[in-house]
């Protein structure tokens, strides 16, 4: 029998992490890239969960491991990358137990049936994710015919229907069009339509608005939000832009160097951020209240080399609240500061006094 969460729940004890609405629960995920130069711990013990109808935003700078996290979930990590630890629990059907996706062969048929069917991806750059020599229709039809045993005609009907759903003007004609003949916004709509082809239970959007201009960005975001709430979809939304998170997410996970440094409901994160990194990120967003012609605060320093991670808290070399002798010695752990809000920082840790 596949390991299900019932067993796991006993082990986790007090942390009543999972409820009946939970679609995905990631626990202690670690993904590494073993290279000649060393091992890069791209994802280093990440845990979070997504409930039905919930949008979880994962935020962090480029290279913090957001994309690797979702690739790990989908089982499309390519060599030399490898998941070394952790569990990825996913509920395949409502009212069924959660199953560990890691127990499937990532290239095997079972996992392939989940990808694209139950978990769908909206990629970062629609232009690059679409083949330039195949028509839009061809790629949409392929998405559903991989999972449903239906005729090409029927598949085309579904494709047109989905394109209409995502607000594509004259969808029938767009079927025979190539990706490079569409505008950036329309291309992203195609990708959303493609993700919806099989009515997935979990939608993963990997920075879907970075490659398009601001006005179109707003349209795509509201479209996603609409679709998500209409169908009560579970969604993971990855971005480096806290402003975008504020618009779409219910729950926020902040990542730094492969670790979750803070997570909590979107209001808590924005109104009472606990981690200095989250605070710094928030401070660097221009608001309507920011005085004109004043330099925005930035985070000093740069991301450390992936093979050369700092000891202790990964953020300490750039941290404004750095405590010498603690932050550079001991890695902090995630600590709850309210029922749903936890922070990985010694500023919020009772352990601090003990170790000093």
């Amino acid at each position, binding site marked *: 029998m596949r390991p299900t969460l019932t067993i796991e729940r006993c082990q986790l004890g007090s942390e009543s992490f999972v409820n009946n609405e939970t679609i995905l629960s990631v626990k202690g995920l670690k993904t590494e890239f073993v290279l000649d130069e*060393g*091992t*890069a711990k791209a994802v280093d013990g990440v845990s979070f969960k997504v409930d039905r109808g919930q949008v979880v935003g994962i935020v962090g700078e480029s290279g913090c491991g957001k994309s690797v996290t979702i690739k790990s979930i989908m089982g499309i990590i390519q060599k030399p990358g490898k998941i070394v630890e952790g569990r990825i629990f996913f509920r395949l059907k409502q009212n069924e137990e959660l199953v560990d996706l890691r127990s499937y062969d990532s290239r095997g048929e079972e996992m392939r049936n989940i990808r694209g069917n139950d978990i769908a991806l909206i990629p970062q750059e629609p232009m690059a994710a679409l083949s330039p020599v195949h028509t839009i229709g061809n790629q949409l039809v392929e998405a559903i015919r991989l999972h449903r045993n239906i005729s090409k005609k029927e598949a085309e009907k579904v494709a047109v229907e989905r394109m209409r759903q995502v607000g594509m003007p004259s969808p029938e004609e767009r079927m025979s069009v190539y990706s490079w003949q569409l505008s950036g916004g329309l291309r992203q709509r195609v990708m959303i339509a493609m993700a919806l082809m099989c009515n997935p239970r979990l939608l993963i959007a990997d920075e879907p608005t970075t490659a398009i201009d601001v006005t179109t960005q707003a349209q795509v975001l509201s479209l996603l939000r609409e679709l998500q709430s209409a169908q009560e979809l579970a969604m993971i939304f990855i971005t480096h832009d806290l402003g975008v998170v504020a618009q779409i997410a219910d729950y926020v996970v902040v990542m730094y160097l492969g670790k979750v440094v803070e997570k909590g409901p979107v209001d808590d994160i924005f109104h009472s951020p606990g981690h200095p990194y989250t605070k710094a990120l928030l401070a660097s967003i221009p608001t309507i209240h920011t005085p004109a012609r004043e330099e925005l605060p930035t985070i000093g320093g740069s991301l450390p*080399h992936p*093979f*050369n*991670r700092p000891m202790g808290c990964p953020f300490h070399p750039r941290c404004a609240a750095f405590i010498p002798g603690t932050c550079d010695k001991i890695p902090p752990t995630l600590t709850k500061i309210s029922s749903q809000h936890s922070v990985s920082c010694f500023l919020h840790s009772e352990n601090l006094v003990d170790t000093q």
Partner: protein
Amino acid sequence: MSTATTDPEELVDFDDAVLVAPNWKLVWWRFKKHRLAFYSGFIVILIVIIAAFPGFFSTQDPYESATRGSFMPPQGIHIWDKGPAFYAYAAIGKRNQTTLKMEWVVDEETKVPLRLFGRGYEWEVLGLFKSNIHLLALRNPDVDKPIHLLGTDRLGRDQWSRVLYGTQVSLSIGLLAVFLSTVIGIFLGGISGYFGGLTDMIIQRMIELLQSIPPIPIWLALSASLPRTWSVTQGYIAITAILALITWTGLAREVRGRFLVLREEDFVVAAKMSGCSRMRIVFRHMVPTLSSHIIAAVTLAIPVMIINETFLSFLGLGLRPPAISWGVLLQEAQNLQSVALAPWLMLPGVAVIVTVIALNILGDGLRDAADPYH
């Protein structure tokens, strides 16, 4: 709790070094990582040394013929005879009275002692002075007959020495032809890429036209039109020019493509702002930046030229005897009869293959080093 397997200190130093290193140093570091190309570089250097001093490595005057020494098979060198030794067995040739061909048997009774750095025939060192020192020589040159490491040809000439002398011609013709086509290619490609517009259009159409022509018939027709009365040197120059005439187009295209990118770079704009003339910008600022790419492209063009010269000479339309090139030597092996009688006549082909492989691997390595994001 560092996760790195490498010492982090070292990594930091490395990063700093990388940041300040000039471009050629970066290229060199990347090149050194490409092991195979690095070793091929040594082979190429060895071939160049042979091309410079063929006389030192050869055992006999390449033009010296012996009527009673034709078609002798290659002789081996032995280094063990109940203890370290250095000798070859003598070969006895008899003329078959019915076929009138020379037939050879190895005489294991007679040993021909050899030595390193011995004296032999006189050769010219780079045309400056004469020497009679050879890498491999007979211990008793007055008594023993010369040995033939790669056998002899129809006229009894020593093939080993001829292959070595052929290196000089084949390699230099490749180098010279590539040099010529590089000059044309960089000049026209640079002009085309920098000026753009009508100039670019005309040059590009010309290149397209030239590239759509199959080169071999043109080479043949051009080489056939060379007067038979021309001297070896005249023929050499003419063949080089003919080879270069068509191959410059590839280089010109490559240079132009790079120029189009470079033209937008800040340092070119800066040079323009500070009032440099166009020619100065092209040839002082842009060409040097391209040098690593050009070196790689040139290295890859040389083997092509060497093979083309071999083709032409093999067909009897390139260099003509008494000139010695690998193609001229291979002409001796042109038909089944000669190959069946003396298969070692194909050995100059091995020289071609080894040289071309070494140059190709070296060129690939250089290209990867010059353009890691290719």
